[in-house]
Every structure is written in structure tokens, then in C-alpha cells.
């Protein structure tokens, strides 16, 4: 048992160390940032495609706009806001965390808590 605990400890140390170093050295270049953002945007002229995946004219325009804005130093949030003002929330595949969508985002976590309580209550009388 002692050995086990030692392994676990060692493992956690190594893992956290590596994670931090990786996080520090991971610098995203502009194309990766464009990809990340455009994957979360809907191509308004296609059927269920993201702007990144699509080669439609609309998508190519948006890709250019996003790239220029990122180069100009705008944050992802600003760009999304700009696009929503222009095309509506429909363009975002990741729904905004606002009042309307509170249920959408909260629901899975509410269920998770209920599930956890269920297991705890059911297993209460069964301690061995």
C-alpha cells in the first residue's frame, strides 16, 4: 500500500509539472487562432457547416475579416460581438452564456448533481 501511495504522489507531481511547462511554452500562432475561432462559427450560406470547414464565398470573407481583426489585436470576444451584431446569434455554434441560455448551460450540471446525490443516498446504508 505504501508503494502505491508513493506512485500516485510521483505521478501527480510529474503530471502537474509537465502541464505547466507545456502551457507556458504553448504559443498559438495567428492561423491557429483563426482556425479555433472559425470552427465555432456557422457558415450562413451552407447547410450545417462551420466557416472553417467551408469554402463558400461567405466563409472565405469571414475568415479574412477574422484574420485581419486578430492581427489588429482585437480579442475573440470583440470579434464574436461584431459578427453577432452583423449576422445575429445564429452564427455562433457555441451559444452565448446569457440570460436566455442559462438553462441550456446549467442543465447538464444540475443533472450531474442530482445523479451524484442519487448515488450517495442509495449507497448510504451499504457500507462494508
Amino acid at each position, binding site marked *: 500500500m505504501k*508503494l502505491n501511495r508513493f506512485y500516485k504522489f510521483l*505521478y501527480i507531481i510529474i503530471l502537474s509539472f509537465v502541464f505547466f511547462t*507545456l502551457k507556458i511554452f504553448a504559443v498559438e500562432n495567428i492561423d491557429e487562432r483563426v482556425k479555433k475561432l472559425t470552427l465555432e462559427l456557422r457558415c450562413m450560406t451552407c447547410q*450545417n457547416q462551420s466557416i472553417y470547414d467551408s469554402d463558400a464565398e461567405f466563409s472565405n470573407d469571414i475568415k479574412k475579416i477574422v484574420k485581419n481583426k486578430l492581427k489588429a489585436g482585437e480579442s475573440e470576444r470583440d470579434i464574436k460581438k461584431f459578427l453577432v451584431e452583423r449576422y445575429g446569434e445564429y452564427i455562433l455554434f457555441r451559444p452565448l452564456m446569457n440570460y436566455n441560455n442559462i438553462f441550456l448551460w446549467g442543465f447538464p450540471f444540475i443533472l450531474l448533481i442530482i445523479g451524484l446525490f442519487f448515488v450517495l443516498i442509495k449507497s448510504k446504508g451499504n457500507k462494508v
Partner: protein
Amino acid sequence: MSSLVGFLSLVFAIGINFYLFLSRYIFKFQKQKFNLFIRFSSLLTLLSFFSLMYAYVVSDFSNYNVFQNSHSNKPLIYKISGTWGNHEGSMLLWLCILSIFSFFFSFTKNIEDNFQKLTLIIQAFLHILFGLFIVFTSNPFLVNSILVNEGLGLNPILQDPGLAVHPPILYAGYVGYSIVFSIAIAGLFQNTDDEWIYVAKKWSLISWTFLTGGIALGSYWAYYELGWGGWWFWDPVENISLMPWIAGLALVHSLMMVRGEQAIKKWIVFLSILCFSLSVFGTFLVRSGILTSVHSFAADASRGIFILLIFFIVTGFGFLVFLLKEPKKSNALNLLFINKVSALVINNILMIIATLTILLGTIYPIIIEVLYNKRISVGGPYFNSTVIPIMIPGFLLMSIAPILSWQTNKINNSKKYVLAFIILSVLVILQSYFLDFNTWGFVGLLLGFWIILASIIAIFSSYKIKINIKFFKIINPHVAHIGVGIAIIGITCSSVFQNELDFNLNEGDKFNVNGKTVLFEKIETTNEINFQSLRGKFLFDIEKNQSKKIEAGKNYYPVSKMITSEAGILHKWNKDIYFILGDQKNNEWFVKVLINPFVSFIWLGVIIMMYSGLIAISRR
């Protein structure tokens, strides 16, 4: 003529089912005779389906449905598969598969006669519901009021061998849950012994295996036909198929608990009703035209309302019986900190949460549109950041769950697992250190490899290795989980480590893909029977003698004036090289090359899962 035969046999089949349904209350007859009637009505439904198919094959444009969806110059295979390439025909296929399931169920042995009869009566009831739906709102046998020599043609995206296999297999999965539903309801009514659980298990495994195959075929089809290099989009239609799949998986796992004498009958019945309800609900969403996709052929409000009605009848009836005839209190669950029962309960809870989250995400845009008259999208990023984290503990549990004991808290050989996990995570860390680091990639690879490794350790340390059928049946749960692990690796690699290269090329240009030289030979246009094709011809790895030919391009279908993209894919065991030919600008062709690592692992994983589904059917 064939339309008339089809219509009459359909109506006759519904009539017989109506008679059988009444037989519970008015005219009682024996089991033998009852089964004969069931089989006869199945044959009539089949006959109806085949007469529609015949009308398609001979291009009988006096049938309005054929006129709308077919064209005489299509190749034969698309005439046959075109039968279900439209709303009416696909609903007839649905009914047809429903009656095939009844047909085979009528041959089941080892179950009580009355129980079998009751199950089939519920099947007959479902047959009547869907049969009336077809006759009144989606009749494929309507007569064309004008005389024509040519049809309007089939949607070009559907003109693909995928159409021949994907819908029937997927439907076999959806509709298979009707039998599970009927068995569960009949079980509630009769409330006799637990024998029905074994019957339900077999049929739910059959449906689940078909559903797995159907979904995988659908995503493979999307992968090579839609031409954007992905195979899953969290598209509403995909979500709809995923919901009964996950619920069905939870059902299959719950049915395992029967063996530990921990029958949680109530939960099993609930899941059985849920699976079929989700299937019908999915049909409603797709067929009502609320969702726009390649699957919703034509929007018609009356159909949507009718299916919604059927959905409420089926679900309402199911859950009402469930509430009124609640099974007797079963044994208390033997939940320990970590034993098999608690693992299965946690797995069930996680799967249900995932199913409900997908359900909410899929219908949320509709709710918002109704309430606020505003359009929003709930897409991949939402599901990736909710459903996947919810499933991760389940995946972790899955690696060791099959060897946990029913009664105690102990894990045999726990040191081996701890050691293996540590070595594995160091390896994965090294991998992500030297290649691109990505959190999802890290988690996915670690999980996938861990599931495979733990299952292999479990097989070797818990059982004596023998090569015979019995052994394969014993290790089957581990094999299924290895399949999931392989699929997780494929999914992670192909989505996280996908690489994209863009080129602007002239004919005759050479370019570099992944260290290999590729020659863009030429552009070729040809006229096929029912379309014109434009193909860019590529030679991959020209330095070698056996260079591979790749063709990517577009098809133009004059009948429906549509262009489809045809990706050129070079399959290797460790990566797919995916060519997309874009438009021509300034005399240069835009060519996009995607390198999708380990895509083949996804299909391999799915095949392993289906294999172990089949093995599990034969195991009791």
C-alpha cells in the same frame, strides 16, 4: 398496377393488425392461428414495399411518388435504393422493418404463450398507428394525375451506394426498439417471472448493433460525400440518432445487472420505453421539416402533427402503463464504493445525463425560436464542452468495470493497473511534449490507450487463454471496450491532429504532401449516364514505382441542377489523405489536402463493437 397491389396489400395488412388488436378483447383465438395472422400481415407489408420498389425499378411514372423522386436514366441500384430515398418510401420501409421484427419475434421460443401474444398485439398496435400515418399523410401509391414520360429525379447527394445500406440498417436499429418497447409493456401487464428480461436483452442487443452500424455508415457516408473532411458535426440529425444509441447502451448495460441478481426492473422498463420514444421523436423531428437537413425530404406540417400525435400516444401510453403497473419492489442495490453494481449505476446515470443534454441541445434552438422569435445555434462547441466531460468518468470506469466484483470492494491485481496507468501517462505526456500539445488530444489519447491496456491486462490476468468460442464469449465485454478505446483514439487523432494544406495549382504542377511528392496530372471532364463529372487527377508519391492515383472533383446533375463534391481519399492504415478540388481562379485550381490521422481506427472500433454486440446476442 403495382401501385394498386401495393396500396391494397398495405391496407389489408393494417386491417389484419386491427383484427389482431381487437382479438385481445373480442375474438380470442389460439396462439398458432394468431402467429399465422401476424406472419401473413408481415408478408403483406413486405409485398406492399416490394411493389413500390417494382414501380421504381420499371420507372412507372403513373405513380406520383416515383414521378417526384426518380428518373429513368438513373443506374439500377439508385432506382432500387431510391425507393426509400424520399419521405413516403422511407416511412413504408420503417413499417416494413417493424413487421419483419414482428415476424421474427413470432418464432421466439422459450417464452410464455400469453406473453408473446401480448407483445405481438402491442406490435400490431404500432403497425396500425404507423400504417394509418402512411395511408393518410404519406401515401407512396398516389396516382399521378398528369401523363408524363419522365420523372423529376433523385437528390444527387442521395445517388450513392450509401443510400442502399445506411437507411435500412439505421431503421432496423430504430424500429428494433419497438420490440423492446412491446416486450417491456407486456412485461408490465403480465408481471409474471423475469424470463422476459432475457428476451428483452437479446432484442435490445440486436437493435443496438444495427443502430451502431447505421450511425457509422451514415458518418462514413458524410465523410466521403459531403467533402469537408469530417465525419461528425453534431448536426441535429446525428444527435437524434445518438440519443437512442446512448440510451440503448445504458439499457444493454442495465440488462447485465440481471446476472448479478440485482434486477432493477423498473429502470430497465423505463429505458426500454425511452429508447423507442426517442426513436419516434427523432422521426418526428426529421420528418416534420422543423430541422433542415439532407434527411428532411419535404416539409409538410400535417405529417409533423400526425407523427407528433403518434409520439404522444406511444410515449404517453408507455409511461402511463409504467406508472400504473409499476413492477414490484426489487432487491435493494448493493452499492459499494467501487463494485460492479455501483460502476453500472454510475455508467447508467452518466449515459442518461448525456442523452438528456443532447436532447436539450438539439431542441433548444426550437424552444428559443418559439419563445423569443430569435434564431440561435447550438453546435459542436456546446456538445464538446458538455457531453464529452460528462462521459469522461464513464470512460475511465469502463476500463476496469468488467473485472469488478459484484459483492466486494476489492480489485484483483490493482498494483498492475496502477503501474500500467503511470507508465502509459508518462508515454502520452512524452508524445504530447514532442508533438503539438493539445489538452483534448492528451485526454483522448490517454483514455483510449488506457481502456485498451486495462482491458488487455484484465483478459490476461483474469482468464485462462484458450482459443474456443466459449472463451470469446467470456472476454466479450473486454473486447467491446477495446473497440471503444480504439474508436476514441481514432476520434481524438482525426479531430485534434488533423492537418490542412492549401494549394493553388496548374495542371502538371508538383507539390509536397507529408514529405511525398504529388503530381497534379490533369483535369478531365466526362459525361456519365445521369451527370457530368469534373475530375482532378493526382498521382501520389511519384518517386515510387507504385504511385497511387487519386481523383477528386465535382459532379453536375443536370436533372436537378445540382453540383456535388466528390472527395478523393487515399486510405492508409494510419492516415487518410483527403483531396478536395476547389474552384478555378486565374487559371489556377484551388486544391485542399487534409491529412486525417488514424481515421480508420474509428471504423475498426465500430466494427469491433458490432462484433461484440453479435457475440453478446448469442450469449445468455
